[in-house]
């Protein structure tokens, strides 16, 4: 109820994992969605977030230590707004045991791999199975193949990604933080799915191609 807005109260109540805040905080409290980014180190998780939140791309971006926290609001086509609380986790091995701290209570997870690295795709599968085992049952997972700008070095085909995503009931998208291709679509797709906005699977697929 705290997150109800005058516009579409029914769809809003569908949003899972919403953190309800004091209603007096603003005229139209925005539902918050916790989204966690997981994936091997160096696949570009931070680059995706920084591209999305700040519109920046730094080719020499720094290795993330621990987890970075950022928030950003998405305006959906139906006029609703969702505030993402984005947890950009470090991909290093040493942080693996801490991941539950970050994905606990998350309503969405973006599992990122690098399309030029089969190994990172394997790692992504590992994260997916960990999420399926340990995260809340209704978590929305989106599989993200990043670095489409390096298509000539591609090792993981879009079909592989799509096939794996479909099999595990996940969303799928291929992006490039460098060219900004499909970056905001990650968050919009997730927001739509969360808010019950019926996005036919076909639409998601079309976003990847």
């Amino acid at each position, binding site marked *: 109820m705290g997150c109800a807005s005058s516009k579409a109260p029914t769809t809003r109540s569908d949003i899972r994992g919403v*953190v309800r805040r004091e209603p007096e905080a603003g005229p139209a409290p925005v539902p918050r969605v916790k989204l966690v980014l997981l994936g091997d*180190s160096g696949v570009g998780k*931070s680059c995706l977030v*920084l591209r999305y939140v700040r519109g920046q791309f730094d080719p020499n971006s*720094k*290795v*993330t*230590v*621990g*987890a*970075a*926290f*950022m*928030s950003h609001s998405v305006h959906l086509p139906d006029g609703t707004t969702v505030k993402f609380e984005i947890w*950009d986790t*470090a991909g*290093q*091995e*040493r*942080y693996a045991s*801490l991941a539950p*701290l*970050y994905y606990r209570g998350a309503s969405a997870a973006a599992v990122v791999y690098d399309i030029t690295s089969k190994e990172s795709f394997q790692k992504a599968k590992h994260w997916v199975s960990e999420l399926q085992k340990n995260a809340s049952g209704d978590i929305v997972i989106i599989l993200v193949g990043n670095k489409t700008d390096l298509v000539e070095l591609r090792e993981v085909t879009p079909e592989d990604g799509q096939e794996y995503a479909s099999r595990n009931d996940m969303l799928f998208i291929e992006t490039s933080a460098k060219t900004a291709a499909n970056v905001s679509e990650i968050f919009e797709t997730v927001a739509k799915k969360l808010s019950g906005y019926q996005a036919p699977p076909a639409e998601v697929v079309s976003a990847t191609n």
Partner: protein
Amino acid sequence: MQASGSDKAAAPQANRRASSAKRGAGDFAALLEGGRAQQAGTGPLKPAVIAELRRAASSGGRSTHSQDSDSDQPALQRTGGDPAQSAAGVSAGQTSDPYVDLFTSGEPASEFTRSMEQSGQPDSGQEELKQSAAPVQAQHTEAAGSETPSDGAGTGAPHGSPGAAPSRFASLAGLADALPAVDKLAKEQLESSVGPPSAYLPPSDVSDRAEAPSPEEIPVSSSALSTDETPEPSSKAESLSEGVSVGEAASMSDFEMVEKEQAQVERSRQTTAALSQAVNEAASTSGQNESDEAWRRERKHMFVLSNAGKPVFAAHGDENALAGFMAIIQAMMSFVQDKGDQLQSIRAGLHLVVFVEKGPFYLVAVSATGEPEAALKLQLELLYGQILSILTNGVEKRFAHNPRYDARGLLGGTYTVLRSLKDSFETDPAAMLSAYLPLPLASTLRHAALTTLQAAVKGVNATWGLLLAGDMVVALAQPRASPMHPLDLLLLSNFVRSTDSFRQSESFSPVCLPYFQPAGHMHAYINYLHQEAGLCLVLLSSQPEQFYTVCPEIAQAAQEQLASTGVTEAVAAAMHDDAHRGRLHIADLPKAAGGGSVGTTPLLHFLYKVPSRGQFIMPAICAPLDTQSARQALMPAYARVHAAMFRASEGGASAGLAPQRVHYSQDSERTMLAYVSPEYEVYAVYDALTDKQTAVQLCHKLGSYIKSQQTDLFVP
């Protein structure tokens, strides 16, 4: 370092060798001697190096296979080189003597390392051998004596016995030869293709300081001396059976080993395999280490490797390309260690090489900065502490599980943290003083900052809270019962400061405070409230639950409060001044307290520590100390004074000697005065012409001025 005759003779060769600069292994000699290494061989350089490495590597693991004495003999003769020189080179801790003698006398002793560890019987034969090394010990004593920091005077240039070390290293290499843990085939192949293996042997004096387990040992303050001459019963004991086993070693074979040795054997095999791998890596990557020349010119190197010889970290250069170099370090350290002893330091020319063993790691510093051994040891310990702050000591379990574990994967992305720590030692005496540097701030503002910080700590149920500005502390909230250890604060501050990803957005990170609890980690929340000023809020909690959800909001509130009370502005203004970055200016101090612009006051720099607060202050470096060489000389000068004053208390068993309370020294560069009392410690640098009376007077006045200003200068 005095050059021996052979050094000089070898110089042209050494120069040529240095210029070729593409080997992993020769680095050690060249590093130690600035390229003035002895080159005995004329064979192809790289294979020689590889062979050398293999030999060195083989000494790392305990010998597990016996080998034909025939095949060993030639190698021994080669490594032995000039017999006279060899004899002169023997300069080791008591436990090292036997092996040196064995090898100078050319006996193969493939089994003796192992048997030494097992038996505990005295050996008269060994005693005899030991005597033959007597003159050498005398030399060594001399050399070790020069190692003690000379008060105030320039870097204690060693007057060690020239020509001693090459043969010592020859002995080491020879030893490695005779400990045939490396697979024989490869070795034979290599030997057939390479020249004499002494290519990397550094001409230098060597001092081993041993920590003998024996209760009879009498440690003295300059312990480098003590252990050389202290007989160690167990090592002698081992030698008796040794006398027998040495002769027969060649015919001993695997199946003769008793069962309980098998674990050792396995470990040894693993070590050997790891080393071979490291050596192979080195061989394959040594060509990549293009910057060898520049690398050698670095004033201070620090290396971290696993005790199986795997590279973990190198402050300069690429760890992978340095794998061979690290293998040599491993060989040296584990060789001495296998004898129940520990390699402490080596003095070579201007370079001091200090070895520290911590958990599964070997840490080594190679320094030409003139810092004393105690300072370098502390720095290495802090480097280890920083690794723990990232990994916790859980990393030790990984190594216990798998000695060949590669820690580089775990440390991924944190080399900037380790490098930054290493760099901070050059400019920051915080480690030496075990205290932190507060940002000078008007007491009303400080109070506002502290109130805000305490509210934030309370709000998120944190244990500790810090407000940092660059490398200085603006405010610190800590429970009375468990104040933060100054070295933990130093490591935490460095970790936060040197991790760039924290600047991009507010972050959470696990961090271990090794002096508080090395086994576990805290959850840290890091938020840069003001980027340009480097004003950073750090909250530490052991309970993650609430912490992760409330921190962002609390930080937001704190940020607003600090801005509204003017703290942010004041800090930004202080930090804005590029030259001083928030530090005091000597020019701004009152004249009576030694202040004044350049040339009007003899006071150049000072450190003032208040032990009860765990804080110290120091002014910004300004003319005439702002040249590169003067900057570089400053901290080592402080370190020498500090070491001289505290040597007695750091000597462990030799405690009882009170540390010096006053220290005055003068050389062509500077006059230094230090005064230590329970209430405060002052270390002051004056210009070289300052007389003692002026120095003391100014020191007093400075002290009372700082006392009068302490509410602004120190964090409450």
